[in-house]
Each structure stands twice: as C-alpha cells, then as structure tokens.
C-alpha cells in the first residue's frame, strides 16, 4: 500500500513547499518556498527529515487531513490549535500518528503561516528542481495548484521511528503584531532624498489588505522618489519598491522577477519571515543596516539554528 495523506479540508490556503526554486529566473520563474523558512526547517527537523523536505504551508489555518499509515508529523509556525482525532496536541513537537488518524488545525491566533511536516517528507515530483507551489505560475505542488479537498498526497516510503522531540520554548520564534524590519539600503536609494529616507525610517507603517505571497503592500506616510520609474530590472527577495503613490511594497517569495518601480533597499530575510507572519493591520517599522551587518546577522542566526538542540519527550498522547 502506498503511504499517503488524504486532504479533507485544505483550509484557507495550503501549499506544498520545499526550500524554493533557484537558478530559474532566466525563464522568468520566481523563487516560491516557505514564507517563514525557520519554522519550516524546524517542522522538518522535528520529524527527522532533511530540513528542506517537501511539507505543507497553511496560511491562517483550517487544514484537515487523514493519514493512511503510521507516521510522524510536526506542526510549527503560527500559534494554532492542533487536534488529532479531536484531542488537542502541542506544536513544535513530534506527534505520532496511527493509520486513519485525523489531524485538524484551527485558525491562527498569533502569526499566520503554519507548517506541517511529515516523516520522510511528501513525495511530489519536482518541477524545475523544486516542489514549491507558485499558484500564479501554475508550477510546482500537485498540478501547479494549491492543495484541494480530496487530494491524496503521497509520502515517501519509510520506516518510522517513534521517538518524539520538542523544540524548547526558548528556541522558538515569537510572533508579534509589531515588527522592526532591518533594511539594507540599495538599488535606487540615492533617488530618495535624505528627508524622505528619514521619514521612511522614522514612521510606522501598517500592513494593508493587499498582502500575499507575492508582496506586502504597506500604508503610511507617503515616500517621494525623484524618479517615477526605471528600466525594468531584477528584483531580489525583500526588495521594497515605492510606486508613484508613495506606499511601499515589500516583495516576497512569489514576487515577479523583474519590475520597473524604484526601490529604496531590501529587507533582511530574517525579518521578512516576521513580516510574512503578519496579517492586515500589523505594524511595521524599518531600520537601516549595512550589508556587512546583515551578513553577520545571517551567520549568527545560522549558528544559533545549528547549535539549538531538540529535547526528547515521553510520548503519552495515546
């Protein structure tokens, strides 16, 4: 028998993701991948997977599925109720599931991106070297679409361990409604006057309703740029573009690969993950850092992630 999960309800939006799609910008394909990579990697590590194994990203919540085999799962990311056969279970911990168990997510109370990883990972055929789903492109996942009710998603064939692990609370990210985004000034920053830059870094912005995997549109004091448009050029992850209306847009994983709006710089990826956990109404401030500082922060975060150990738990859920 093939091992699989049967989706009963995909919730608001559930997408199959791996690390993302790289080296394919030359044909216009974007990156995709988990909006909160740290939570994604922990979900995989908790079930003994390679940290970039294919897993599910659910936005807001509502996902419900049934497994047809004994397996292990872990739910990380946004704070949400997790129930197995109706019984509440912890997040950030390995859960043992038996064949025909049903797991159901509630709706996120803090943050909005939830990750569900399965022991040995989802078995999905990669497209352009990745299983990451980019709905706009119709690429990745199952037939380029989000997960649908009645989808049968295969698991890699596996022998299952039953030891359970937990990420100690001290090692878990904290999701807040107000975040400071460290920004590396760059691109067309010279076209924003000193006054405009001070305005930008001084004021608070709000996440608008227009926020998705492609970009987060913010509302707040207008930022003026000397130029309205530029020759279209490559856009990196986290780039902050400022169109004519002066309202910044932070470009996320599913961004278009080229565009012609001026950009004031790019957000540090570590903070982009915090932004990705915000929904409309969330508050944002920007703080400038140098690229060297950014590299130090990235190296430090990677060191901390590698040093962090999991704690064994006595499994007594059944």
């Amino acid at each position, binding site marked *: 028998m093939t091992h699989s999960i049967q989706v009963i309800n995909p919730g608001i939006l559930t997408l199959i993701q791996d690390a993302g799609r790289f080296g394919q910008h030359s044909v*216009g394909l974007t990156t995709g991948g988990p909006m909160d990579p740290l939570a994604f990697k922990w979900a995989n590590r908790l079930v003994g997977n390679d940290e970039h194994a294919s897993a599910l990203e659910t936005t807001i919540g509502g996902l419900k599925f049934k497994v047809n085999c004994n397996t292990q799962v872990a739910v990380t990311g946004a704070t949400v109720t997790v129930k197995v056969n109706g019984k509440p279970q912890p997040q950030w911990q390995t859960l043992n599931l038996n064949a025909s168990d049903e797991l159901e997510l509630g709706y996120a109370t803090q943050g909005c991106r939830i990750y569900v990883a399965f022991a040995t990972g989802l078995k999905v055929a990669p497209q352009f070297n990745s299983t990451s789903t980019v709905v706009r492109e119709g690429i990745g996942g199952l037939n380029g679409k989000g997960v649908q009710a009645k989808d049968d998603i295969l698991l890699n064939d596996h022998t299952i361990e039953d030891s359970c692990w937990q990420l100690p609370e001290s090692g878990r990210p904290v999701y807040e409604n107000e975040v400071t985004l460290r920004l590396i000034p760059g691109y067309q920053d010279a076209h924003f006057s000193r006054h405009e830059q001070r305005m930008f870094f001084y004021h608070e912005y709000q996440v608008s309703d227009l926020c998705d995997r492609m970009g987060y549109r913010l509302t707040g004091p207008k930022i003026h740029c000397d130029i309205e448009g530029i020759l279209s*050029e490559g856009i*990196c992850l986290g780039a902050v573009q400022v169109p004519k209306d002066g309202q910044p847009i932070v470009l996320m994983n599913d961004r278009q690969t080229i565009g012609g709006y001026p950009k004031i710089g*790019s*957000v540090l990826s570590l903070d982009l993950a915090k932004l990705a956990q915000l929904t409309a109404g969330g508050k944002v401030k920007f703080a400038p850092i140098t690229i060297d500082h950014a590299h130090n922060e990235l190296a430090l975060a990677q060191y901390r992630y590698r040093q962090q150990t999991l704690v064994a738990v006595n499994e007594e859920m059944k």
Partner: protein
Amino acid sequence: MRIHVAGENSLIVYFGENVSNDVSLAIQHTSEYLSQFVGETLVDLVPSYASLLVIFDALRTDHLHVRGLIRQAQNQAQQGSDAQDNAVVRLPVFYGEQTSPDLAAICEKSGLTREQAIEIHQQTLYRVYAIGFAPGFAYLGETDERIAMPRLATPRKKVPKGAVAIADRQTAVYPAVSPGGWNLIGCCPTPMFDPKGNPTMPVKAGDAVQFYAIDEAEFIALGGDLNAWKEL
C-alpha cells in the same frame, strides 16, 4: 559599469543608462561567465535591459567576493568581446484578421496600411532584453517607431496564448493565457514556455529574434489554435 547593493544576497550591476546593443552584449557576456558559479556561490542571475542582478548565497560567500567575480567576468567579456554573433531565432506569426484586433489602431495612428505594418514588424531584428513578468515572457526590442503603440487604456482580462503584441517600442509573444494590456497584432504557434521541454524556451536573454509571416493553414499545421481568439 556600476555595482550597487540590492539586498543581503544580491548585487545589481548597471552597464549603462539606456538600452543599446553594446549594453545588451556586455550583460550577456557577463551573465554567461557568471553562470558557471550558479549552484555554487551564486544562486541566480537576472539579466534585464541595462542591468544584471547577481544573487549569491550569503552563507557561502559575501558581497566583496561577488564583486570580484563580476569584475573578473567583465575582464573576460572584454577580452572575448568580438565573440560569435548570436544565432537568430525565427518565430512564425499568423497576422490574420482575427489574430490582430489592435492592428487597425496602429495603422490609424501611423497612416500605414495593414500590409506595411505587418512588413515592418517582420523587418526588425529584435533582441531579447529581458525575460520576466510571467514564465517565458520575453521582452523584445526595439520595434520600428512607426508601429510603436502605447498600452491599451483597459487591459484585456484574457489574452490568448501565443498572442504577438506591441507596447511602446517593445514586442512580445504571450507564453500563456493571461491578462494583458499590450496591442495584439498576430499569433505565434511556437510554444514560448514548455515546462517539459528541453530547452524550456526557444529564446534566452540576449538572443536575436525575427518574426516571419505564415498563413492560416501553416498556423494550424504548426499547432496553432484560433478558438481562443473567437472569445476576444
């Protein structure tokens, strides 16, 4: 050449202020040289009109090293600057009545006849300046000024796959059904983006492209489909 920081893992290299053949060639040569490092220290490259975005793995290298690679690429490019000309990719176009809903407006603006406008579109040897907007969407430039046309005031909700279109002095083939505001003047039966194909696209950034007219029978024989155009 100016190198700017774009983000924690990206540098953007500006080769000039405007679009030109020299700029485009320099971008192509630099991009080709750097492509050998993609998958190692470099993650991806995005060539565009006058710039090249170089994305690197910030945990394996840093921007100083990447600046070095870019300079190295440029030196190499200068040494081999009279390298081979690009092959010309020829793409068939059916400039039929039903596949050219916006040709009349172009003719009205320019005073050209249909035949003249179609002829002019085929005469230019275009360059692929950038690929983006959607998978497989290649921006080709520059069209003859006489057939240049601003984007439609109201974009269409559904442009058929293969639609050959003009916006200002750019022309392109829509690789898939999508919304779009470009002026439609024909349809190309050659798939511009085939996820299962090898290569995925018939063109790449820097390539030269020329269009040639085909009739309806040839269009259908090459796999063209007129049904989508009936719903416009």
